[in-house]
Structure formats: C-alpha cells, structure tokens
C-alpha cells in the first residue's frame, strides 16, 4: 500500500527565514503534486513534478523531485505572512495525499 509521509506536520516560521518541507513516499511514481490549502478553502495546485530531478519555482517556493529517493521537497525562501497555509503533497499512483504541513509565518 502506498504511503505518503510529510514532515513536519506543523511549522512555525519567522518572516524572512528559510525552511524546507519534506514529502516521502513508499512506491515508485513518476509524478508528484504540491497543493496549497487556505483555511476553509479548496486546494490550489502549486507544482507538478513529472520526472526525476525536476525542479520548479514560483515566487518564494521551489519544489524538487528525486524519484530514486522517493522524496520531494518544498523549499520556502524568505517567508512572508501570505505563505501561511497548509501544504500537501500528492503522489500520482492512487492519488494519495500526505497529511499536510500546516505553515504559520509570524512577523
């Protein structure tokens, strides 16, 4: 059974700091998705990673995929309050989501 693990589950950051969220999965997959969810809202697609070594960046967020290690990372650079949300990774096989990382950016 495919398992998707995210860590940390909760992250409190100061504005301006950098941090990385990790997503590990248990079976091979050639694509991985990152989503953002604001409280009470639906999921917003952030990144689609389609191959080993894929790296995508949008603003202060950068996602990468290592299919050999079965690991994806979401790196946050110089965090700002607007990035406060829950971030989910999802692995295409079975479309399994991780439990999410609840990010809070404090001034």
């Amino acid at each position, binding site marked *: 059974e495919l398992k*998707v693990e995210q860590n940390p589950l909760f992250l409190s950051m100061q504005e301006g700091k950098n941090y990385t969220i990790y997503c590990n999965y248990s079976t091979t997959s050639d*694509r991985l*998705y990152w*989503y953002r969810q604001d409280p009470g*809202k*639906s*999921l*917003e*697609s952030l990144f*689609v990673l*389609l191959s080993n070594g894929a790296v995508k960046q949008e603003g202060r967020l950068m996602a990468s995929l290592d299919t050999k290690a079965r690991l994806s990372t979401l790196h946050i650079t110089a965090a700002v309050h607007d990035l406060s949300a829950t971030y*989910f990774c*999802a692995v*295409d096989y*079975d*479309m*399994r*989501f*991780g*439990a*999410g990382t609840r990010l809070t950016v404090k001034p």
Partner: protein
Amino acid sequence: EAGVAQSPRYKIIEKRQSVAFWCNPISGHATLYWYQQILGQGPKLLIQFQNNGVVDDSQLPKDRFSAERLKGVDSTLKIQPAKLEDSAVYLCASSSSKGGRIGYTFGSGTRLTVV
C-alpha cells in the same frame, strides 16, 4: 474557463439520513475524482472516473456510499445511511487526463455535518 462546480456548499443531516452531492467538472475533462477530507487530514480518494467508467473505487465504502457519472460529465456522490464519522468536506476534482500535466482542479467542496 469555469472551474469545478459543486453543490451544495454545506449540508447538515442526522445520522441514518441520506445525502447527495453534485459535481460539474471543467468542460472537456475526462477524469473526475471524489475525495473525502476529514478535518485536519489530507484528502482521501474515494472514487475515480474516466469518462463515465469507474477506474478506481477501492477506497469507497460501498455499503453506504455510491457514485455515478452519467454521460461522462456531471457526477453525484450519495451516502445512505450517513454515520457520524462521515462528517467531512467532500471534494470533487477533474483533470483532462489521468495525472494531468497541469495538475488537478478542485471544486470548493461540500461540507457535511452529521449530527
């Protein structure tokens, strides 16, 4: 383009009652998914359709949940009878293909409360 439409937005029912949710995917999207998201957890896939055929319903509690996608467009998800543990947000998502290169588009969801 219009997004994924879901209705109702909220529903409160008593346990053992029945409830149905409706989803209209993005026009032309062949793949449609229903997810259950319990508060504080990640979405859990319930069922996946490709056009009007079921691709994966392995996680659908078939004793009480059913879903259909007539004519390969709109879809309904039904719970009968509901249990307290069914309280969750039910999300519908669509994609132009399985594992779309631009990801999946989610609707706003239906928040179900079973009392």
